[in-house]
């Protein structure tokens, strides 16, 4: 497991004062913490209803895709926890190491078209859009874009 930028700063600073760069980073982060916390709470609250809604919607839009089982819908909704954590820490590496790298490898290994997962996340985004405020979306966006990019970037089959 890697250390977040905040842990790194604290450990490397150690016996010296924080420099301007570090200070600026920390201050800008702290000012955004309330919004980030709000996102985490909101996602936690939505989780149960999102799972049902996502599964239903995926079956409605893509009835021929047997990939979208109820369990997979639940897995995808639960992945929002890792997105939330990365947003709370403001460190996308957390999302990469916990979720994105594994997801890309699993899709390649099981010969699943990443576009199908991207489609599922697009549906999830639509469902969330109605629930989250604009300021909350602003903090969520970088992580969500990272997720989208990783799926549409084009996988090299069977290798990571």
């Amino acid at each position: 497991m890697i250390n977040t930028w905040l842990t790194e700063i604290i450990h490397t600073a150690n016996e010296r004062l924080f420099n301007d760069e570090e200070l600026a980073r920390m201050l800008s982060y702290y000012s955004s913490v309330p919004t980030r916390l709000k996102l985490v709470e909101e996602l936690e609250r939505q989780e149960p209803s999102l799972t049902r809604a996502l599964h239903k919607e995926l079956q409605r839009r893509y009835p021929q895709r047997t990939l979208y089982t109820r369990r997979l819908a639940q897995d995808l909704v639960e992945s929002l926890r890792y997105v939330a954590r990365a947003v709370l820490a403001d460190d996308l590496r957390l999302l990469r190491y916990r979720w994105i790298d594994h997801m890309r490898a699993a899709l390649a290994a099981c010969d699943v078209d990443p576009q199908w997962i991207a489609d599922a996340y697009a549906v999830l985004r639509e469902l969330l859009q109605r629930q989250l405020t604009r300021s909350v979306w602003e903090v969520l966006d970088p992580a969500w874009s990272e997720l989208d990019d990783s799926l549409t970037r084009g996988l090299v089959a069977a290798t990571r």
Partner: protein
Amino acid sequence: MPESASPFRLKGNYFAEPYHFRTDVTTGVCRTPTGVRICTLPPDFLLGLRDALIYECGKSYRTVLKAAGRRWGSQWIKRLDREWTAYYQQPFRELPAGLIRVCLADAFAAHGYGKLDYTRAEESPEFWSAEIGDSLFPALVGESDRPVDLLMSGLLAAIFSYLHGLTMDCLQTECPSMGAERSRFLIGPAPRIAELEAWWEANTPLPSHEQVLQQAAATSHAPTNGQTHTHQEHHLPHSQPPLEVVS
């Protein structure tokens, strides 16, 4: 909508949690969230183990180290099976074969063993080719005239035996301590591996991984000690065809 036999699941890297390995420094005990005690082996310990084994056992230290790896592996994979079954809320062995491979690779990476990858041998489906990049033992030992990744050899044999329900063995065919880029292994039914190992050792220079694969394919229809090898493909979850791909 009927689910396919090995439905696709996605739960992320089980080990990539911030406190998956947490040490309590007041007691000097490191545990995983499930309460299993984890010990981190320093390289000095591993080299000391190797030195002591060579000193006491001579040439047979290789058998001992591989047997230790195998014994360890059979417990490790059992425990991982339990943990992953609880994590995925379904029997681990019923997950898609590719996902099992990614999970095992995650386990190897999280524990510092290196980067694991494996594929089924095309011409001999009862064999598997595995490789570990940046494997630990060869990096520690340096140069050697024989492969040194014995613990991993035993570990892989145990893992594959458990997952396939057969007694399988593992032969290390290439090793960074002998100049190769990474450790490579051939895993297959124990009697076949024993034959191939004998053939491999008898050759000078030692055959490459590809040559061993060719030998495996060439001898695959020859009767082994009067037994015929039954390919139990239909019982193994790994033999399921890949999931539907979008047209």
